[in-house]
């Protein structure tokens, strides 16, 4: 196991998540892509902590921030979907884009 291996794995997770976030029409599925991307970020931060600077605690703090970001993203995401659905019966990104017209 090396730093490169972990980072490649993190990059793979990030790119799968990015693909999902770009292609999915449903807002809820899009958020799953975002979660995967953040999962990749967490893994990369942990690997950097372990292989580069284990004595510094900033790597761990970064993971805490990423985990919190995941929770916030999901909570706000669901609240927005609920609000959109309440007002317009919309649950897809393409339909939400038409709102501005």
């Amino acid at each position, binding site marked *: *196991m090396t*730093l*490169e*291996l*972990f*980072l*490649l*794995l993190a*990059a*793979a*997770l*990030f*790119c*799968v*998540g*990015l*693909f*999902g976030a*770009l*292609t*999915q*029409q*449903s*807002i*809820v*599925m899009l958020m*799953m892509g975002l*979660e*995967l991307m953040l*999962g990749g970020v*967490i*893994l990369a931060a*942990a*690997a950097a*902590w*372990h*292989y*580069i*600077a*284990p*004595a510094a*605690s900033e790597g*761990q*703090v970064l*993971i*805490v921030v990423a*985990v*919190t970001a*995941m*929770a*916030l993203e*999901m*909570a*706000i995401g*669901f*609240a927005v*979907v*609920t*609000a959109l659905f309440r007002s317009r019966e919309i*649950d897809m990104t393409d339909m939400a884009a038409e709102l501005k017209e």
Partner: protein
Amino acid sequence: MDVAVFWVLAVLAVAGAVMVFRFDSMARATFSLLASLLCVGGLVVLLGLDYLGIVIVLMMTIEMAIMAVFMVMYMMNPAGLMPMTMIHNKKGAAVVCGLVFALLAAGILLAPWPARRGKAPADPTMELGMSLMGPQMLTMMTLGMALFATIVATVVLATRRGRYDRFGDDLRARRADDPVRGGVGR
């Protein structure tokens, strides 16, 4: 041993991630995302961050269980009994993702990574706590404020009923008119 665990978790994590977007059933997609993120938690434990790894497992389990509810609620075809695709711009996205991955991989393989400096503390959990409650206090407080703001924002966004619905037009009603009565004597 560690190497074997790494490869098993790594393969499961990527396979779970890919299956999220291939399953028709929303329940399966959600729980394959959970499997993938649990593997990430396991890998974090493998890297020596036991506490953070276990917290990721705890948080993701609860988060995905809640997510499943919303998935079923907001998808037209949650059980995947009639397969259908709900994606757009597949080719463009594939190209973008391929490029991003190539770029990241090139960076990862070509960058001159610095050698390991220092030794891991005997108790990383203690180190994290001391850091969050000491030099990183500002980060911690920002996170706390962000979480609090999220609670307020989600309730405001998601609720349909305001105080006029609950206490009447002149806000004079003694007890709130709630559809579900609570457990503390209201």
